[in-house]
């Protein structure tokens, strides 16, 4: 009965690789953030509430479609903004997150642990981020590393549409193709963000994020 549990860890870990792009771990005090990512065989929905400048609580739900059914997984996590650099026209962050939850696969339940690290740096024209995430059921540990770099061809005022070009590469050690490349168009309008794109194999990606 080891296979289904490992399957949950593996597939949930795959989905978590996308999570960094889903939402900011910590926003502003009393801020709410929601996001959703849709791909042909998976959905990831996340919500978060920021308690203070440094701490937020969040929850994540993931659904992964498999050939013989589907996996549902979810967990609660605590996010910490460990360090922020506020420069004149730039911002850099170090976030740590940890949480616990469970997965359901073919009537079998697995308890899951989760941890992540995120480093990012952003100006109004340039954005880069490095993330690493791990999921474990206590015996198996799966991790992903994702690197993003983005460029804004113009700087728009707050009430106008801001566009970004983003390239993402993801390292997945246990996959045959352990490197995945993705190109995305990112659009900001006030407090709503959309991302549209896909990987080099043609797998599409749609994301929406809203802050309140």
């Amino acid at each position, binding site marked *: 009965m080891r296979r289904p549990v490992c399957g949950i860890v593996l597939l949930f870990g795959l989905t978590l690789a996308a999570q960094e792009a889903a939402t900011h771990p910590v926003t502003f005090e009393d801020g709410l953030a929601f996001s959703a990512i849709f791909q042909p065989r998976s959905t990831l929905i996340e919500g978060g509430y920021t308690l203070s400048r440094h701490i937020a609580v969040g929850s994540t739900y993931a659904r992964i479609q498999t050939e013989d059914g589907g996996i549902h997984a979810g967990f609660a996590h605590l996010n910490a903004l460990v360090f922020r650099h506020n420069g004149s026209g730039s911002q850099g962050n170090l976030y740590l997150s940890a949480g616990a939850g469970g997965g359901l696969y073919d009537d079998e339940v697995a308890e899951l642990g989760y941890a992540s690290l995120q480093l990012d740096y952003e100006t*109004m024209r340039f954005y880069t981020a490095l993330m690493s995430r791990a999921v474990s059921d206590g015996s198996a540990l799966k991790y992903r590393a994702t690197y993003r770099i983005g460029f804004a061809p113009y700087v728009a005022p707050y009430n106008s549409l801001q566009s970004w070009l983003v390239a993402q590469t993801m390292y997945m050690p246990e996959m045959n193709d352990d490197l995945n490349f993705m190109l995305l168009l990112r659009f900001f309008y006030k407090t709503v963000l959309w991302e549209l794109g896909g990987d080099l194999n043609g797998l599409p990606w749609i994301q929406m994020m809203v802050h309140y």
Partner: protein
Amino acid sequence: MNCFKLIVGVVVMLMCPFIVYANGPAPYATITVKGMVCSFCVQGVEKKLMELKGVEKVTVNLKKKTVLVWTAKNASLSDLDMRNAIQSAGYNIESILRQETSPKVRSSVDRTASPIFSR
């Protein structure tokens, strides 16, 4: 000549409301914020400043990294209030310019910012 003065007077009277509207009341304070680089950042700054008692309107110029704060008549905000609001949004204040003081007089709040987030 009297007719000309009369016409000029009427035109000026008619234009007054537009002139006043175009200029509008001056902002209570102009804050330069460090680390504000995207519209999500702007949202947090606006929200925390609008929670302050007496603040009626906040507008942000993202390119200039400046925040204009308008208050109700006779309302008063301290530098500490504004600094705390900006910090709870996750950012730091570079400077505060107040309407009632000379633009050359800069607040010292940037020197009292939280050390953990200062450069």
